[in-house]
């Protein structure tokens, strides 16, 4: 199957007062139509920055390295090389929303408080579907209905603060979908919601994805959520993907020490009496990137003299799986 989106060697740097920082280094992934890729990582791991680069939403101080490749197959069949587009102009505006939709973490803040949700949905419809007036409104009402908002005819004229958190996130999904994107990026869409509402929104997104056949990139720091929605997962640490593969396989048998740590940190009802195990230490600032493997200062299995000097390459680790760790490289490679 031909991929919807292929990202290769994506590197993003920012000029800051403290110097050049590189929150995303050589990231690559592929998204297929109708499939979900989960991006997992702590805050600061570069997952949001790499997806923002896809629709060129990064601030002016950001630089995408010249050898980065972001190739997107548009609905018309045309191949769009996103890295060649600028931050402005009709080409990128057509891509934003119309081809690649985005949902953000905070449903309250993603709507402007001074316009009705209908106004903001219809804006997307007008921009990308060429509809106007009554037709745009009808589509907006239909979309609100589709995402499970009751009384969509009344809700369409309400302001964001008149809706509950879960409703707002549903409305945001309706907004993103009403422009008819082929790929949806959901940046922690359920993090700010109650657990019960979280499950409903996940269920909704899965249903809509099946119905519309969209590709989906689902960003979260919660491996539990990933298990419910993504076929494939990529775990990011300090701007690089450290482990990737089919979600079930990765969760059952994580191979990178970081993934193992993340899984142990999930609270579970089976282990009520144990203390939660946090991954020791903090994610370092991109300004103080450790030498060698970025994870080695926090790694329980680090090999002195190797992990702290040389960064491991990505190596195969089972069917469809790849991992960036010396432990795998040592065992996967015949001893010289």
């Amino acid at each position, binding site marked *: 199957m031909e991929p919807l989106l292929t990202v290769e060697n994506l590197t993003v740097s920012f000029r800051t007062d403290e110097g050049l920082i590189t929150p995303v280094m050589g990231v690559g992934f592929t998204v297929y139509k109708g499939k979900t890729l989960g991006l997992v990582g702590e805050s600061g791991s570069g997952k949001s920055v790499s997806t923002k680069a896809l629709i060129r939403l990064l601030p002016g101080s950001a630089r995408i390295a010249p050898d980065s490749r972001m190739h997107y197959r548009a609905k018309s069949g045309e191949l769009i090389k996103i890295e060649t587009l600028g931050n402005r102009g009709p080409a990128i505006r057509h891509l*934003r929303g119309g081809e690649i939709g985005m949902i953000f973490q*905070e449903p309250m803040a993603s709507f402007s*408080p001074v*316009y009705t949700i209908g106004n903001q949905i219809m804006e997307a419809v007008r921009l990308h579907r060429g509809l106007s007036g009554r037709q745009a409104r009808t589509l907006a009402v239909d979309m609100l209905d589709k995402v499970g908002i009751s009384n969509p005819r009344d809700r369409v004229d309400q*302001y964001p603060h008149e809706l509950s958190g879960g409703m707002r996130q549903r409305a945001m999904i309706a907004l993103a979908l009403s422009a008819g994107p082929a790929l949806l990026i959901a940046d922690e869409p359920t993090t700010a919601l109650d657990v019960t509402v979280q499950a409903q929104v996940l269920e909704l997104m899965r249903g809509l994805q099946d119905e519309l056949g969209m590709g989906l990139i689902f960003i979260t720091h919660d491996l539990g959520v990933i298990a419910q929605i993504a076929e494939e997962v990529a775990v990011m640490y300090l701007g690089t993907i450290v482990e990737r593969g089919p979600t079930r396989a990765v969760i059952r048998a994580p191979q990178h020490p970081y993934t193992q740590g993340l899984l142990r940190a999930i609270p579970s009802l089976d282990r009520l009496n144990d203390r939660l195990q946090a991954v020791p230490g903090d994610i370092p600032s991109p300004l103080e990137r450790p030498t060698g493997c970025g994870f080695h200062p926090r790694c329980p299995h680090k090999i002195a003299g190797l992990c702290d000097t040389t960064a491991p390459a990505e190596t195969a680790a089972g069917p469809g799986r790849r991992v960036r760790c010396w432990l795998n490289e040592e065992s996967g490679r015949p001893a010289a």
Partner: protein
Amino acid sequence: MIRLVLDRFVGMVFTMALVSLLVFLIMELPPGDYADRYAFRKYSGTGVNVTEGDIQAIREDLGLDKPLVFRYVDWIGNIVLYGDFGQAFAFETPVTKVIGDKVWLTLGILFATLIVTYLISIPIGIFAAVNRGSSGDYLLTVFSYLGLALPNFLLALILLYFANRWFGADIGGLMSPAFERAPWSLAKLWDVIAHLWLPAFVLAWSAVAYQLQTVRATMSDELNKLSVTAARARGVPETKLLIKYPARLAINPVVSTIGFDVNRIFSELPIVAAVLGLTELGELLLRAYLDLDMYVAGAILLMLTFAIVFMNFVSDILLAWLDPRIKLGS
């Protein structure tokens, strides 16, 4: 929205009633009244002996002997019912005649100043916020601190000099001498407008500097809001996006301080008017006070405060229109 307008309108009328009472009491504050002043003017240096009884007679003649409450009701009643602001004692004509055109010219200066202030400060403030940290932004910052630091009567003199040297503008005044006694016509109106920009610019100067910084600061905040990123992520063209989302909220503090701006313009106007040789109300107000010509002073004070109260009403309505959360809160 209609409910809110009505609500605020009733509030405005109530405020105006209170203000009129306050103005009347202020008029009463200076020691003595026009009867003393009149007797002094008429008989000083003539050698005539003026008794307390004579002054009392003048007082009765002018209607100043009645109790305070009666005089207030008379005064405000005549204003509301007949538009009659009473007698200007010193001029021996109705107040409306003395004030006459000056009201319109003062209001003209006021609105011209407000328009100049907002037309300059809002777009430039937005520009500075969008291009934050650029050389244009720094230049504007320096310029606006200069605006805050420079006293505007000095600026008036400088501008007057250059306006005269470069554009051959008349020195001072609100109209060409040819129009001064002419009846109002389009040509006269145009002439006034051509003269108005200079005082408007001078009075707007410091407000522009201040509001520019306000707009720049709030706009910078608004630009970082997620809702702006979200709008950009759905492909809204940049210029439309800036106006529709962050700018609408960024001008909020400017709109809510329209009343303060009006107040400030009225307090700075007399000095600027003196330098530029304008005829406006401030100067007349001062003279009326010196003469204890209380109905003239009262009429002027009333007009100025009503203008402030009215502009506050306008600012309330505009705020509610800009941010629909406001009316739902009430």
